[in-house]
């Protein structure tokens, strides 16, 4: 019955309770929505890196990771792919030849990473084929076709069909190179990627390198949500002599984004909830002071201090929880709506593309955030209840009943 009375008590002053509930709901909703935008930005940066160059897992010859010399290739790349493809978490794997090279045009030159690929395989792990803005993705009869980013094309001042020259070291360390014709130009959400990567056919690179089939990298894409670390661990068991890295170790700055986003959001939520705690405490303190005589009566007729304390704590808890549930419900509604429409950030597109963030952002919140925020609200509700509840306990019935 203490629970029932506590619930009824919060509706005695509807206006005051609704103000507190609204403050909690709006505060929570706004902070969760802004958090969802941060999460989406972070996730988009990570996904953009994974779906362009990085992929979830990369396999290399251990020596290649220290010295990017093509001499340190993966001897039995096709066999490795055949073995790891049995892993149910794996979506696809693509074999690549990667070489640091100099690209030059009549107008300019730049350092780039050349990725020699099999377009069929690469399509299944990368979304470059879907990011083609001009031309096509190796569907051409051109000899030595190359696909490069808009930014690089602009730097080199080249067009579709223009010729560029790639210069790199061969397997014996001698300079070699060849002229490539631009078959496609892509535009991803990351300007940095677009200016520093070019795709060519692996077989063309073998021609220029005068080698047989040779790969330096196997890129692996996993199911969305699959545990990357455990998948990497199982691949390590299959290829113990290879270096198996996850995107977290390959791009620690992205891993850092993922970690700091969660931590900073918890700090942000903590600050918001702390501010709300003061409002709730103030409101409950007013309620206790207004009901001094009633609380005195309850003490007089034999209600224990423990029950009175519990009643005030429950009132604060219900008030906060109602606000929190309303806030979470509004957040969920907004997120569902925004998951259909997205947030148009095209005004900031130029700046965002430097960070690998798209113009349309689809905010989302991981499920654990809802649970964590609910727990945080419960903790802050209890904290904000303590002072009013202790104040109630300190009332002396003889004194308040005389008032």
């Amino acid at each position, binding site marked *: 019955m203490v629970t029932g009375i506590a619930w009824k008590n919060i509706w005695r002053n509807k206006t005051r309770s609704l103000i507190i509930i609204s403050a909690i709901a709006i505060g929570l909703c706004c902070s969760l929505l802004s958090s969802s935008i941060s999460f989406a930005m972070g996730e988009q940066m990570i996904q953009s890196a994974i779906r362009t160059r990085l992929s979830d897992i990369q396999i290399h010859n251990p020596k290649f990771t220290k010295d990017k010399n093509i001499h340190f290739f993966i001897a039995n790349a096709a066999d490795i792919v055949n073995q790891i493809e049995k892993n149910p978490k794996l979506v696809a794997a693509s074999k690549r030849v990667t070489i640091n090279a100099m690209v030059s045009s009549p107008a300019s030159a730049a350092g780039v990473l050349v990725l020699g690929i099999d377009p069929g395989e690469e399509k299944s792990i990368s979304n470059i084929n879907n990011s083609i803005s001009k031309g096509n993705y190796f569907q051409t009869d051109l000899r030595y076709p190359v696909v490069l980013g808009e930014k690089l094309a602009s730097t080199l001042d080249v067009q579709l069909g223009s010729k560029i020259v790639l210069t790199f070291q061969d397997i014996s360390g001698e300079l070699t190179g060849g002229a490539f014709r631009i078959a496609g130009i892509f535009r991803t959400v990351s300007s940095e990627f677009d200016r520093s990567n070019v795709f060519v056919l692996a077989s063309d690179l073998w021609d220029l390198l005068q080698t047989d089939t040779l790969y330096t990298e196997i890129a692996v894409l996993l199911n969305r949500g699959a545990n990357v670390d455990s998948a990497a661990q199982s691949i390590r068991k299959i290829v113990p002599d290879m270096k198996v890295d996850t995107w977290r170790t390959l791009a620690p700055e992205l891993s850092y984004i993922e970690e700091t986003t969660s931590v900073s959001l918890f700090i942000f939520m903590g600050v918001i909830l702390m501010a709300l705690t003061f409002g709730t405490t103030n409101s409950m303190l007013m309620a206790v002071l207004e009901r001094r*005589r009633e609380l005195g009566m309850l003490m007089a*007729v*034999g209600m*224990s201090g423990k029950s009175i304390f519990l009643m005030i704590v429950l009132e604060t808890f219900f008030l906060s929880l109602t606000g929190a549930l309303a806030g979470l419900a509004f957040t969920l509604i907004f997120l569902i709506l925004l998951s259909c429409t997205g947030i148009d950030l095209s005004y900031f597109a130029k700046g965002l593309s430097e960070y690998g963030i798209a113009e349309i952002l689809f905010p989302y919140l991981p499920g654990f955030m809802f649970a964590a925020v609910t727990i945080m609200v419960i903790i802050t509700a209890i904290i904000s209840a303590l002072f009013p509840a202790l104040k109630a306990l300190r009332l002396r*019935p*003889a004194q308040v009943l*005389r008032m």
Partner: protein
Amino acid sequence: MSIISTENLNKTYHESEVPVHALKDVNLNIEQGEFTAVVGPSGSGKSTLLHLIGGLDIPSAGKVIIDGIDINTFSGSKLTEYRLYNIGFVFQAYNLLPVLSAVENVEFIMLLQKKAKQQRRKRALELIDAVGLAGRAGHKPVQLSGGEQQRVAVARAIASNPKYVLADEPTANLDSHSAGILLDIMESLNNNLETTFIFSTHDERVVRRARRVIELEDGKVKGI
């Protein structure tokens, strides 16, 4: 046999710079089944006496002995429990819980005593009936008149079958008609159940109905 006795009871308030001696060496004996009024002008110590007898306040000196036990030797929680099972309270301002109906207010004391739901609802309805509010059991305090609220308060006070009921100015806020009904109810409960009633009052109507009058003046018993 005395169920309540006070021995050299003193109460001094130190809430202002000048100490206020609310009670001075009060010695009283109250028997089982008494219907007693404590009278006196404002500030004479009536409410203080009731608060001390009810274990709501601690005497500065002296003892309050109930059934042979000095209640001030009890710990805070023991005293709370003692009040729950042995003392009924009726207040001038009714002090019903506004969020509960009349019958729920009566039931509330039995709930604190952890009585079974069916048992407490049955007794609460009987008591509501006994105070003449059978048709108003489901009404909230705000829907009841002052007299009706005070009748609910009386039903609540006797819900736990207390040894005695302390009523602090119970008719002060009531019109003559309501006060008369309330006194009839309390008198009838006193006669039928032998519940001891002790009132503090200014009200001549109550004084006339009391079978014993204790007169206080300046914190001292002037006459019994």
